[in-house]
């Protein structure tokens, strides 16, 4: 048995060129050198401060100050060291992933030290709360993709599901004066887009990539149109209700952790639940085994009696419901009122997070948090340090993604039957 797995690994590794094997180590080292040579050398003199309490009032935890340049040197050295380890010591899959996470974390910390050197302290709590705000639609979108693609249907329509969900959540919450009906309406609308995806992809055998793009175009056109017809003429349909903050009693009082993880509105807790449920359902239950069988080898699944088409229909619609909640977050969960094209590419970033996270809920969570953190930094850093050019800071998360995808992750493998319609013969 062991020989078989080694053989399988060898076959899978075969197309990779010899230079490919060194890419990860070289990227680790390159990021380490950037930490040292760019962030460390160019940092202003002075300390970078990190505040760990919510506001200036009642500072229970002192501000952590570190000398910026030496901190960058240390973080760079860690990256270089990991690069050497990666090149010389054979580490397992888990080790590789942890190493990637540590290197990215060091890189981001060095970036923070460089940006904040000699400036007012950064408030870590507020940055992390902002990270959740940016990440929740990404996480729910990526989970939607995960549900669909594990069953073998490519979901590029995440963007459309988010946008339509946001629109109907806003309009229903405004018309009925309740945020919960808005949340439910957003979720159902996402499910409706999922149903369209399912009908065209599974029953009418339409190319799924085309279909996803088309659904996004339609969602954009329809929401623009209805915004123009209904909302801009009648502000009563876009009042901007939002959910109230729901502190978890007890847990929210824990310093640092409480305000970050347990002091938000209900969407954050729904997101926790969705991640846990979908991860366990897909990878530790009979249900998930069947879903993955349908996504990897539908013919075999059909032979043992799993209803392929029904499984796909169910998963695509479920995915739509989840993404619809993410869309509802954009309106009733954060800013309240709808504006045209407000999902602004979040669906595509969620798609990237799904692929970056190797089609697993936990991987998608990690990737979404990385993107969300970078999006938040791009907003925060120019206000802390006005010398930084805002467009270049905005660019950073996307450059980081390209580096991560090209240098650290490389070729990923989708579910084998992903995107192929199943025709029973």
């Amino acid at each position: 048995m062991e020989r078989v797995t080694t053989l399988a690994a060898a076959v899978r590794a075969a197309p990779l060129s010899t230079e490919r094997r060194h890419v990860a180590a070289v990227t680790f080292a390159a990021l380490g050198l950037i930490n040292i040579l760019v962030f460390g050398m160019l940092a202003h003199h002075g300390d970078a401060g990190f505040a760990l309490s919510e506001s200036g009032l009642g500072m229970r935890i002192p501000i952590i100050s570190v000398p910026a340049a030496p901190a960058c040197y240390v973080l760079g050295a860690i990256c270089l060291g990991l690069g050497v380890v990666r090149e010389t010591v054979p580490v397992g899959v888990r080790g590789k992933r942890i190493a990637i996470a540590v290197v990215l974390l060091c890189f981001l910390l060095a970036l923070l030290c460089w940006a904040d050197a000699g400036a007012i302290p950064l408030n870590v709590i507020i940055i992390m709360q902002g990270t959740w705000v940016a990440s929740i639609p990404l996480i729910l979108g990526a989970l939607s993709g995960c549900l669909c693609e594990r069953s073998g249907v490519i979901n590029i329509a995440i963007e459309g599901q988010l946008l339509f969900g946001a629109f109907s959540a806003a309009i229903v919450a405004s018309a009925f004066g309740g945020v919960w009906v808005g949340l439910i309406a957003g979720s159902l609308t996402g499910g409706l887009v999922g149903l369209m995806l399912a009908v065209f992809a599974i029953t009418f055998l339409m190319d799924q990539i085309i279909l996803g793009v088309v659904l996004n175009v339609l969602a954009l056109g329809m929401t623009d149109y209805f915004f123009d017809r209904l909302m801009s003429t009648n502000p009563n349909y876009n009042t901007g209700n939002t959910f109230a903050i729901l502190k978890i009693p007890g847990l929210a009082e824990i310093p640092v952790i409480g305000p970050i993880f347990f002091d938000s509105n209900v969407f954050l807790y729904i997101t926790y639940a969705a991640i846990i449920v979908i991860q366990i359902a897909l990878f530790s239950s009979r249900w998930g085994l069947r879903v993955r069988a349908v996504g990897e080898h539908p013919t075999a699944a059909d032979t043992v009696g799993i209803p392929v088409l029904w499984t796909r229909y169910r998963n695509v619609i479920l995915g739509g419901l989840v993404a619809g909640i993410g869309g509802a977050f954009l309106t009733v969960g954060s800013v309240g009122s709808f504006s045209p094209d407000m999902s602004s590419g979040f669906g595509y970033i969620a798609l990237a997070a799904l692929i970056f996270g190797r089609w697993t809920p936990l991987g998608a969570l990690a990737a979404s948090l990385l993107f969300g953190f970078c999006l938040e930094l791009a907003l925060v850093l120019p206000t802390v340090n006005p010398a930084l050019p805002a467009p270049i800071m905005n660019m950073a998360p996307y450059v980081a993604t390209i580096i991560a995808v090209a240098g650290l992750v490389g070729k990923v493998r989708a579910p084998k039957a992903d995107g192929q319609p199943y025709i029973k013969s």
Partner: protein
Amino acid sequence: MSEIPATGPDPAPAATEPAAAELGPPGDSAGPRRSRAWLTTGVLIQAVTQGSSAVVTILAIFLALVVGGVLIVFSDPVVTRAWSSLFVDPGYTFGQTWDSVSFAYSQMFEGAILNPSTVSAAIHGGSIAAIFYPLSSTCAQATPLILTGLSVAVAFRCGLFNIGAAGQWVGGAVVATWLGFGVSLPPFIHVVVCVAGGFVGGAVIGWFVGLLKAKTGAHEVIVTIMLNYVMYDLLSYLLSHPAMLQQPGQTNEIAPFVDNDANLAHVGGPPPQVGIGFLIAVAAAIACAWLLTRTTTGFQFRTVGASPSAARTAGINVERSWTLVMLLAGGLAGLSAAAIVLGTNTQLTYNSYGTYGSDGITVALLGRAKPIGVIWAGLLFGALHVGGTYVEAATLGNVPADIVQVLEGLIVLFVAAPALIRAVFRLRSTSGTGMEAVAKGWNG
């Protein structure tokens, strides 16, 4: 793929498409038989009843217009009032509905293709040129769409999904603009250099994507999406610094006008004119068609698109094909930018990139990733854009131009789902679904 002869202008006969043909469904043998005699009446009837690809396309457009009509009815306050008296006076209700929808679509037609009143004016001694004014606007709108559509289409043929036409567009626009105002050259040479610069600027961005995929396996969908945002931010940075591309004395993100020498001229005299950009777009489409169907490189692209592993076994350098096709795709998107920056606007602003990138995807899909098909798709979408603006003005905003985007989406949706069209119009099902060779899953 057997429908190819029925689409008429396509230069790719079924026999030269081994790579695409093998992706078609089994039992697809009607091709040569139909192509021999496709002009006879019997075959025409057969094409209609069995739903050949041209018929499906026309029916898809028709169905999209019907669904769009529902939206138009919804927008017209007179009609929505008329529907409240549906049971009292159904004749009035349906009459108002028909009037509203037919008015909107006829205005769209007059704005984009032909306005009968200009014809009668010309007969009575008016300007003949005015007849062609709507068509010339359509061509002008179609130009960037055709070029970004080609960019997406050639990448599709090699099995790559290029969502990054927008970023490549920005790359081309930056280079073309800088050459346009920052460099002094003799008249004719200047514009040629600028257009070439646009191609190169886009090609560099596209090449980078192909290179990353070839060297590290990074998925082109992620890389192109991320590069789009990088390029938008880069554009914003360049346009906010006078030392870079910003017009001196401006606070907005706007570049100087390009020199007159660098303007893409128009041909055909006063107002109704065809821009050189449109001619470049058509020439680029023909060149792509030739490249894809008549050259070894094009054959390699299509083989890689059909199956990378089979192509590798056959000795084709798959990585080289990916890099090369993305270079070409980027260059075409850059040409689209050159046509806008040097021709239509003569100035680059932050919003110049518009929606050319995403429109390029829909145009490529409607054109079935075939260069000549992309020309027709680009013209159709160009006409819809022109007609949409026209109808919004003609109905005093009752029918918003946004409706065009819905129509575009519906057309591609229905064209790509021939099974649905056949079901709706009760056509007999035949071989081939038409679009299956365009795009593939992540595992390519």
